[in-house]
Each structure stands twice: as C-alpha cells, then as structure tokens.
C-alpha cells in the first residue's frame, strides 16, 4: 500500500510573514497512504503549511522531510524535483494561467506529472462538465474549482494536497468530488491531505486529523479517537458544575436553571452511569462542534 504513498514529517517548522508567525514550531507526522484532514479556521496557517509541504516555499525555521514512493532517505521538498514531481498541491483552481485553454492545462499536467492518468482526467472532466476548449479566464468559479479537483485526482501523486479546492464548487459538485476521491483512492491508495473548514462534509472521508489554530498545532489524532474525546453534559446548573469540575470545559451555556457544558476528556461507563443517576444527560460531541470549540477565539478551558 505504501509503495505509492509519501510520508511527511515536520520538526519545529516555522514560517513568519513580516515577523508574525504563520506557522509556529509545528511537529507533525503524516502517515503514508491515509486521507488526512487539515482543519483550521481562516488564517490558521493551513495554506502556508500546504505550500511548505509541497515545496512552494521554504520554512524560516525547522524542517520538512518527505519519504517513500521511491524516495528512500527523507528529503526536503524545496527546490528538489525528485520530491516535488511526486507532490501535487491544488490550490483553488490548480494554479493554471488565465490565458491557457483547459486542454493545454491538461497537457501541461500530463508532461509534469509522472503518475498522470489521462483516462481518469477525461472521465472526471465529463462528470464535472468542464469544457476543454475554453480559456481559464472564461470558466466560472465552479468550473475552475472542478478543474482543480480533476488535476489533483488525475495526478495520482503519492502526496496530493487539496487546499480548499472545492470552495468554488456547489454542493452536488462537491459530493461528486468526494465520491471520485474515495473511489480513486481505494483503487490507488496514496497520501491525501484535505485542507478545509467544511468539517462536517468531509469528516467521514478522513482517517487522521490535524487541527491548526493561529499557526499552532492544536491536535493531531485519528478521527475515531477525536470523536470520543468530547462530551456534552446537560442538567441543573449546580449538578453540572459539580460534575464538570475535574474536566476541561470547552464551552458552557445557561438557560434558566439548566446548564449545558461541553467537556474534553474520557468519560468511562461508570462515570456516565453516575452522571445519569444524578439527573444529567450525557451526549456525544461531533467532530465539527469539537473543532469549533477547540479553535474558539477565547478558550473557556481556562475558567477558574
């Protein structure tokens, strides 16, 4: 499975824009052959990280190492054709020049991408109804995004990064993209990174998740583990407060005498039973809610 997949390893990775950190000492490991979600709010550093991983820019500090798919010793991607030919970063519309016709963009990709699959590209262009004889500047935003998705999938690159590629696509097109992604990934497993803030849409596609906030790593975890990490607790305010005293409280809301708290932590069955008999309702917290709470501007975890 890993023969066609790259692994990524960053250490102390920092990027600064005019002295302001965009990425702040990131230590990351992306396992080969998985679909990773790169989640963060706007301005959290997702795009900067994607650009550094793809060798589009150099880190100011620390390092990125890429390994696998014929690369036996870990290498930095920047200015290294051996590595970058195996990495495909698709930003919104695939960085295609405006004056270029779609069919020329495809030929260019074919000449640059060692694992390019023209049949797949043709099939996907049909599915997304992208006209190949038009110039890029004549395409609607949705079609540009769709072309980006096609270029990324058909590259079959051992590390393929979609940086909010699907933002311009409407809901049915995004669904078609997710379908195509899963189907082709099952056929040719490779390392895929989906950078997005549309968490609920992609959560079932992901195996591992990286959450960034203000350039820092909030957490890196398998999705299943993350799903079990939060709980919502609802009941009489006083009882909720007593129960949640030993947990990290991510958020709380009050309505009259009733209080709802979102906590981080493992709730074992004994604890859940104890809470239930105290009159509390315990519920799960979805990935999207957990994401919202973990990246909230002011964390309520620091309450006294």
């Amino acid at each position: 499975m890993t023969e066609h997949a790259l692994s990524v390893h960053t250490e102390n990775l920092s990027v600064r824009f005019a002295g302001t950190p965009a990425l702040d000492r990131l230590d990351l490991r992306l396992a080969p052959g998985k679909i990773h979600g790169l989640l963060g709010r706007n301005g959290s550093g997702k795009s900067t990280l994607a650009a550094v991983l793809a060798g589009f820019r150099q880190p100011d500090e620390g390092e990125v190492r890429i390994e696998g798919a014929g690369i036996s010793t870990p290498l930095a991607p920047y200015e290294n054709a051996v590595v970058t030919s195996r990495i495909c970063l698709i930003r919104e519309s695939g960085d295609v020049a405006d004056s270029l016709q779609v069919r020329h963009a495809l030929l260019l990709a074919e000449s640059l991408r060692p694992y390019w699959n023209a049949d797949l590209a043709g099939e996907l262009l049909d599915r997304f109804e992208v006209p190949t004889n038009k110039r890029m500047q004549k395409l609607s935003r949705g079609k540009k995004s769709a072309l980006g998705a096609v270029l990324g999938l058909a590259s079959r690159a051992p590390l393929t990064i979609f940086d909010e590629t699907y933002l311009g696509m409407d809901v049915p097109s995004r669904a078609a993209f997710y379908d195509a992604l899963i189907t082709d990934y099952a056929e040719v497993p490779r390392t895929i990174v989906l950078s997005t803030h549309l968490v609920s849409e992609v959560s079932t596609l992901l195996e591992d998740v990286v959450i960034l906030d203000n350039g820092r790593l909030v957490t890196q975890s398998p999705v299943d583990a993350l799903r079990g990490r939060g709980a919502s607790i609802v009941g009489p305010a006083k009882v909720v407060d007593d129960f949640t005293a030993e947990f990290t409280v991510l958020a709380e809301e009050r309505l009259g005498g009733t209080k709802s708290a979102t906590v981080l932590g493992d709730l074992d069955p004994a604890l859940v039973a104890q809470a239930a008999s105290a009159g509390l309702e315990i519920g799960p917290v979805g990935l999207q809610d957990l994401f919202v709470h973990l990246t909230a501007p002011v964390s309520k975890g620091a309450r006294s």
Partner: protein
Amino acid sequence: MVFDERSPIYLQIAEQIKNDIVTGALAEDEQVMSTNQYAAFYRINPATAAKGFAQLVDEGVLYKKRGIGMFVSPNARDLLRTGRQDGFFADVVDPMIREAKAIGVPLRDVIQHIRKYGDS
C-alpha cells in the same frame, strides 16, 4: 445510511451489517460488499469500512475467503439474535415502562396493547 456522531463510524457500519443479518436482508454464507465498494457507496474512508468489517470477523459474524471476499458466517443470525435477546428487556422494555409511568399510561393498557398488536 446516515452516520451520526454518537459513536465511531466503524461501529455504526458493523451495527448496520448486523441488522441486515438479523432481519434476513443478508443471508448466511452470502457475500457482503467489499470494503472499497462499501466505502465508495457510503462515501466513507476505506480504512474505516475495513475496521468495521474486521470487527465483525473478530466477532465471528463474517468470515474471509482469501482472494474472494467476506461472507456471512453460517451461525451469524443465531449468534446475533441470542446476543440481542439478552439485552431486550433492559434495552427495549424497561425504557418503555419508564416512559409509560412518567406520562401516566397505566401498565394494564400497555399489556393490553401488546396482546392486541402481537396478535394482529
């Protein structure tokens, strides 16, 4: 099938397949979808689907034929039915009685309804 946030998706996949076996939608010794087919159909990560299937193999609900795929175990239906019978009163009947008491439905009405509905 719509997955909810109540539990890991692989467990929900396993539950759904178990349900299909209990209701007879999946027959014993019938081949189940491959994990990749399943992943594409429900738009989920293939590794997640594989985890759900692996759990069912561990529990003896499915068995593997090398190079062919996965099949429903010959005794799977009995196995699952016995398992669910164990929890039936605690999981299904007790909550109903609690609800009946809470909203003031006399238990004799409940029993009468069960007799009537069960006979029809």
